[in-house]
């Protein structure tokens, strides 16, 4: 296991579903039309049965045991020792799409122009320069935050598997959520 494991904290109580995180990622990496490394998913009514909506912003979870890395036949993935970020090296990728099929969170996407896979790199170049990931910086409500080390993150009131986010303990995704609260009724 890496010495440190960076991750994302998604506060569903603060998220207003504005897609700024997904757009910040697009601005940073100029993904092809229709391709997004980060996306904002509404919780379906079966989980959050209110007129008000709740969202979760998801990208790659930089898992402790990444399936993408395991299945890639050309070793195009590696996990950084210093922060556990899972990096995809595009120059090695032969576009077999095995990672795309195999990641249960659907994080690697197919780039139809380059005929290769690609995914969130947690902006590791920005991290190395002491900056936060572009999505985190772009979030106007602090709903999306960067976790420097999962081990020292205060877990109280947080969950790893929010309803609507599938449970794969064998991967141990590096994300934590604060579940949405019931909408408050304001009476006049």
């Amino acid at each position, binding site marked *: 296991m890496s010495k440190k494991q960076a991750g994302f904290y998604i506060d569903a109580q603060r998220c207003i579903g504005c897609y700024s995180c997904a757009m910040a990622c697009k601005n940073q990496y100029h993904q092809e039309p229709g391709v997004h490394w980060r996306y904002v998913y509404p919780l379906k009514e079966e989980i959050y049965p209110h007129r008000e909506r709740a969202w979760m912003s998801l990208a790659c979870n930089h898992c402790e045991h990444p399936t993408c890395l395991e299945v890639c036949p050309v070793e195009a993935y590696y996990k950084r020792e210093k922060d556990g970020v899972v990096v995809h090296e595009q120059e090695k990728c032969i576009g077999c799409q095995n990672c795309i099929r195999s990641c249960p*969170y659907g994080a690697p996407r197919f780039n139809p122009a380059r005929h290769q896979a690609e995914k969130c790199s947690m902006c590791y170049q920005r991290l190395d320069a002491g900056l936060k990931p572009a999505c985190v910086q772009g979030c106007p409500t602090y709903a999306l935050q960067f976790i420097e080390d999962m081990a020292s993150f205060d877990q109280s009131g947080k969950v790893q598997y929010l309803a609507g986010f599938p449970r794969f303990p064998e991967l141990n995704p590096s994300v934590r959520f604060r579940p949405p609260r019931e909408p408050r009724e304001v009476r006049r």
Partner: protein
Amino acid sequence: MVFTDFSLVVFSTLAQLAVGLTVMAALQPRAAGESGEVKLKVEWVTAGLILAAALMASMFHLGHPSGSPRALVHLSTSWLSREILAFGCFGGVLVLAFLTLWKNSGGSSLLIRLTAAVGLAALLVSGMVYAPPSFPALNNGVPVLFFLLTAFILGSAFGAYFVGAERQGLLVKVLATSLVVGLVVNLILPSIWLSGGTVARMTGANFYGSWLYWLRIAGEFVVPLAVLGAWKKIPAWLPILLLLGEAAGRIMFLNSVVHTATNLGGLY
């Protein structure tokens, strides 16, 4: 239905047919004399050509086919790397067996059995590639079972082209048994999926709700079983019908099985 993996349909179906032919060649008693030998050689060359076509088709699946030799580097954890190695070994022993057959030197029957064994092992490895955690319906032994069924159904059916009509007994038995197992598996499996989690249930519903699924049940299992029951032999058109049925099954396998990420934000 979004259909993007035609190359994988061709690759997997043909590779499994090639394995099936070698397995049947290993099991099938041959007519004594030259005619039996010639038919075996023709069957063996056909299996080799089908495997070559399958491997060629697999290249069309890659975004960058020129990098395919590098796909062998991650044998430590990648089932895809292992699959490529396994089919490479299968092709290698198949060629070796052909050389001994061609020269009529001893040891060819041992090599034929070895080829069949390596081919079956390649199918097991291949099944693991298609059983990732992202497909709850397939994250188990189902892909291996499907691939073995394809090999036995197509191998015994196409094998009939290479033995005299009077020597089809064993092939008819293997084909009929494989079709019965295939029919039962294909009828029951969606029900098992329907009793699972949300994503597996979506897969089960996709299968039972698809006209292609029912067409395949009728065309690949019910009709051929009736034909075998009535005629006790494999007519020349039957292998083609079964190949179409297997291709239809593979299309569903690759396109109708639901990925966990499809339901993000919903119940699991």
